């Protein structure tokens, strides 16, 4: 299994990457990679974000679904603004690896969102997938990148509203990771 930590631009630092690596490493023997355009001060191996097509911020997660993504096999991405509370891997190891798997913002379930708000219950703070297995997702996105990045605030909305097959982690994963964004 590969663990991927995405850092693009200046919002997050190498220190943020290193902290998540240190927090997760007691729970797994998986190989860690930082997916970035700036390797400075990152203490784990890095893989380059492709320069074309150029994407901004979290939209770079879409590169992970390309046929030519350089890693093979099972992959898990963790955002840098989360807090690891305990071992999340029992919830990750039990997924169906045929589908990209997201956390679910269950608190949104009972809220009203009109169709054209393009909101979503998906949360890619933790995202698991099998490399090269779902490249149709990139192919949909790549047909009209500029439109999709205007229409959707992020990839979670893109996955939810476009014709893409996905799954959710068991809700128990929320007990192991705090995704409240103020950690």
């Amino acid at each position, binding site marked *: 299994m590969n663990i991927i930590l995405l850092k693009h631009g200046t919002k997050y630092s190498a220190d943020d990457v290193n902290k998540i690596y240190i927090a997760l490493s007691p729970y797994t023997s998986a190989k860690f990679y930082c997916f970035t355009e700036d390797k400075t001060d990152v203490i784990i191996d890095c893989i380059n974000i492709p320069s074309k097509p*150029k994407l901004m*911020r979290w*939209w770079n997660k879409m590169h992970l679904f390309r046929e030519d993504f350089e890693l093979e096999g099972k992959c898990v991405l963790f955002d840098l603004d989360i807090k690891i509370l305990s071992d999340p891997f029992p919830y990750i190891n039990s997924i169906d690896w045929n589908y990209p798997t997201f956390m679910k913002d269950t608190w949104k379930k009972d809220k009203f969102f009109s169709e054209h708000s393009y909101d979503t219950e998906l949360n890619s703070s933790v995202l698991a997938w099998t490399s090269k297995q779902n490249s149709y997702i990139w192919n949909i996105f790549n047909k*009209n990148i*500029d439109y999709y*990045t*205007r229409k959707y605030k992020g990839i979670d909305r893109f996955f939810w509203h476009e014709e893409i097959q996905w799954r959710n982690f068991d809700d128990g994963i929320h007990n192991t990771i705090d995704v409240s964004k103020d950690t």
Partner: protein
Amino acid sequence: MEYITPSMYRKILDVITHIYTRSTYDKTYDLFRFKDVLDSFSAGQIMNKVWAVEELNKVIDDSYKECIVIGSWYGLFAHLFAESGFNKKIYNIELDDICNEIAQMLKAHNNIVFKTGDGMELFDKHNHHDRIVVCTACEHIDNEELSFIVQQKHEDMLMCLQSNNYYEINSHINCHDSLEHFIDSLSLKNIIYSGTKNHKDEYDRFMVIGK
């Protein structure tokens, strides 16, 4: 001069109705198109395109045979340029086929043509001395590709290019800190006009006209 006439606003309203109707049975038409079309005719967009039209009209003469708009969205620049009196062919090149379908509905001048494709790839076909190339959305276009066509262009081809420093928008992949930075990124040999306009204290838009 009033570039957007009441008949144009009528067309925009008709397009909004069309999008709603199409969206009821055609999944390629989604409700975000409402906002996208309206955004493309916002006061800021009109101001930026009028700026380009007015500055271009100061520097062009009758020797230019064609204008090519790269990343034409819903065709606002072409409409304004034709409205200002440019009566040669205006080719709008846009990747998004639905933009072109809608732009065709908004079209008010017969010299305006819409083509679906990658402006960077189709550039070669239009690379002649008597052409004007306009891109008012350079912030959406890869800087390497943009620089490449500037280097490849015929030395007498006229270019009018706009970008901005509005980094916060996710689809903006090629912003620049300043007008000077934008000019440096282009490597045009002869700058005929350059300027900056501030938009609501949110961001600056830069424009360069040159060869």
